[in-house]
């Protein structure tokens, strides 16, 4: 058996005095520099100060809108099918426009169940659901308040968060109202 001597464990080091003093010197350095230059602290004062999130952040969901303000979603439920957390609950209804056919009467996302996997975004054939609202503070006081409804999910300006950010999508419709742009 080979005994490995710990370094610095002999002689005056055995009393730890030198090491202790070195440590104290180090921490005192931090104290002094932080006392006199508090602005150099890396802390972000969160609710008041917010860090900019990277452009491709997978944030909160939103439902995209058509030009007339109606949801782009056609309640095909592919997102609900793809969802591993089963957090999307859609109730479809007949659209007044027979070319669109289907509309979501209810589109609820249970944020307490959502695992932010983004499968719904990938599954959507119409780019109707996106997860690009750069918001990481999904919080609420009741369970009900964390079930996001259609109206809330559509409450945005319908602009691209990242300009010219167009993820590649499969071409499903070449003509008609659902045609990919």
């Amino acid at each position, binding site marked *: 058996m080979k005994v490995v001597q710990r370094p610095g464990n002999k002689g005056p080091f055995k009393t730890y005095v030198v090491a202790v003093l070195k*440590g104290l010197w180090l*921490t005192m350095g931090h*104290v002094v520099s*932080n*006392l006199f230059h*508090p602005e150099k602290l890396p*802390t972000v004062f969160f609710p*008041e*100060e917010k860090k900019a999130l990277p452009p491709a952040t997978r944030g909160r969901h939103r439902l995209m809108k058509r030009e007339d303000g109606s949801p782009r979603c056609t309640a095909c439920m592919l997102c609900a099918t793809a969802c591993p957390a089963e957090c999307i609950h859609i109730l479809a209804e007949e659209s007044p426009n027979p070319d669109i056919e289907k509309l979501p009467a209810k589109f609820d996302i249970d944020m307490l169940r959502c695992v932010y996997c983004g499968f719904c975004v990938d599954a959507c054939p119409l780019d109707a659901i996106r997860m690009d609202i750069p918001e990481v503070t999904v919080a609420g006081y009741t369970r009900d308040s964390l079930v996001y409804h259609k109206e809330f999910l559509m409450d945005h300006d319908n602009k691209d968060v990242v300009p010219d950010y167009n993820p590649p999508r499969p071409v499903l419709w070449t003509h008609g109202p659902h045609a990919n742009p």
Partner: protein
Amino acid sequence: MDPNQTCTLINIAVMTVLMWLIPLQFVPFFIWLERKGSAIIQDRVGPNRTGILGFRLFGMVQNFADVVKLVMKENIVPANVNRFYFMLAPFWAMTVSLLPLLVVPLAAPLEMAGHSIRFQAADLGVGVLFILSITSMGVFGIILAGWSSNNKFSLLGSLRSSAQMISYELSMGLSMVGLLMVYQDVRMSVIVETQGRLLTAWGHALPLPNWGIFLQPVGFLLFLVAAFAETNRNPFDLAEGESELVAGFHLEYSSVKFSLFFMAEYANMVVAAFVIATLFLGGYQVPFASTQELQADPKLALVLLCCTLVLLKGLAGVFFYKRGVQQKHLYTGVKQAEPFLFAGLCFAVVVAALGLMGYGLTAGLPAGVNGVLIPVLQLLCLLLKVLFFCWLFVWVRWTLPRFRYDQLMKMGWKLMLPLALLNLLVTGVLLLTQK
């Protein structure tokens, strides 16, 4: 009754109450210091959110929140505990932690209107020995808590910490013996009085105060380390240990009983700081300005006091102001104004102190005022020394990792005990050569 006697009784009563209140008042401050100190050592900001009406006192309000939380919590007494001892332990710990301060003098006695006002609750003849005996009782609180909780983790934690305290008590006592040999007395008031002089060695006066730290440097170091161990403070906080003991001896305690342990721990440190400052750093003595000198020159106390205030408050004011400027864009209203308010208060004190000093130096102060200023100055001096040791406790805790248990024991018995004995020998030899 003799009016003189009545006065003395009132004096003692007031001082007793005061000596119980001072460490209690130090506790929240100490906790704040710990939190902010740890934060600043680790490049963090520390508590700065809790506030009352927007006043956050730089995180100090967090302590109020803690108190509210602890008091509101359910006071749990687990089944199958020894109820009497279980209840007794936290009170014991708290009481014992406050007691040693009774013999510590806060300032030199003040002669006023024929009465001598003492700033010491009890000038016991046994003095230092009282402190030693009381602190060694502290271990009972921990043992009782750990044993009566009927929990193996608590018991293990209390066993560890009691073994540790007993081991380090030896070197603590021995390091103190050297001091007593130098001072030739155990009475606290005498020890402090002795430290007011200048250091003389073999007949030569040295430009150093006659403090214990200079007389007994090794003893000071041993005492300091032993004090850390006695207060179960990092790097000797083996009574607790999240990974191996859950929470240690106070695992089963909740609510007010837990808060008593918590406060006792900090009160212990405050008391330790007072004791170290008194024994080794001259207590209330202002360096190079003994009580006699202060009494002789009526303006010296005023100048020293005002200069200290200007220095301290000026520095604090600058810090407050800087903090306010730095965070100005973040907040509005009270939150924004608060640092400036405190900076303003500090600067007001600075101005007032300067004004007082100017008035005193030019016009001279009324006769009785100088006598009052001396205890104030000395108390301030003592508090500064105590504060330094409080900070040392925090500083060391957030710098050093904790010892392993075998290292702890090895250090206590194999390193500190022989060193203390050697220190005694050397002290004795040196004392002999001085004669």
